[in-house]
């Protein structure tokens, strides 16, 4: 089973690392926020792989559902440079 689990682990890891990098790299604040959400969701995937399904669901409920929304709120509340028309 361990051999097989390495595959999803690798996939989720790649997603998580990639999106984490994008959180920092991305120019748009909104994109950063969504990449952050993706990273937190992949963390939920790790919990599933560890058979901690309650923690996984809680991760989605709290981090994605609540903290993610709070980040979105923060994005909506910040000033952005007005585009030059």
């Amino acid at each position, binding site marked *: 089973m361990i051999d097989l689990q390495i595959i999803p682990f690798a996939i989720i890891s790649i997603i998580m690392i990639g999106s984490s990098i994008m959180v920092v790299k991305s120019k748009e604040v909104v*994109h950063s926020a*969504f990449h952050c*959400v993706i990273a937190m969701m992949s963390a939920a995937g790790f919990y599933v792989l560890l058979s901690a399904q*309650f923690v996984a669901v*809680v991760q*989605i409920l709290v981090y994605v559902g609540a903290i993610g*929304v709070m980040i*979105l709120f923060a994005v*909506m509340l910040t000033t952005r440079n007005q585009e030059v028309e």
Partner: protein
Amino acid sequence: MAIIEIYDLIMHYLVIIFATNDFAPWIRGVLGGLVIGAVFGGALVMVYLERKFLGDMQSRIGPNRVGGRFGVLQLIADAIKLFTKEDIIPAKADKWLFIGAPIVALTSGFLMVAVIPFDLLVIKGNEYAVAVSRMDISILYLEAVSGLAIFATFMAGWGSSSKYAVLAAFRNVAKMIGYEIPLGITVISVAVMAHSLDIVEIVEAQSSIWFIIAQPLGFVVFFIALLADVGRIPFDQTEAEEELVAGWATEYSGMRWGLAFFAEYLHAVVGSFIVTLIFLGGWNGLPIVGNLYIPGIFWVIAKTIMVMMLFIWIRAALPRYRIDQVIDIGWKVLIPLALLNLVWSTIIGLLWA
């Protein structure tokens, strides 16, 4: 009698295929596509019912051309139309968010479908739930996954880069966060009485008394919060056409709009399923049928259609709230009521246990 024996036999083999071998989860996952298709079909049925019954309630005719007098094929015609329409992404739109929004909305709907049980089979003393996946915490999982739909609307609104859409996206986020909480509290109230977070066990706990009778207040709160969650009248401020044109879907056209639209109906259908399962007794039949054996799946679907009709009826009967009133109701009315219901259900649950 023979029919029931054949039915049992079929179920026996299905259980062998789907539940008792090493590759069962994979088979269920792949064949779960069929379930998605079925629920998608349910969404189509809901669209059709909505158009037809709304027409009846508003003394109109509704669809009546394609597919005979009742226009049953109207939706097929609509689908063909959507497929052949041009796909337009506005130049100013944020392309990734714009494309991603229907995907997130649909994925969230699909994930909810995964844990919905349709029946409970007892074969050779073992219980098998007719569901793609059975978890111990399925109701919590549903809560969590349905929350993802917030992102879909936000992505659509923000990505469109249209003022109406942005306003709608903001309204949607503000509304959803107010209604997730009463939704969660009522779900907990149900779980308190069933002592479990598993939907299958919640339904089984209703074999003697449906939770709508045990906690009518909870049902009302849950239903209202669900209406807000799936964004139907009187809580469809995000698509309030008179001020925001089409809300977050303003810039969507053709099939891309169709996907977003279907995702919304998918959520409504799944919501109806959840109401059926946690309040209306799921596959527990009404005693009126006597000894006649009716498969549980029939009950689930029949009750779900009743709930969908209730949605349609409410849409025909009520005007729309204003956004500040919606948020007021969520925080100041529904949350206290939901907490009250939690106390009530805890007491009842204790007496019951």
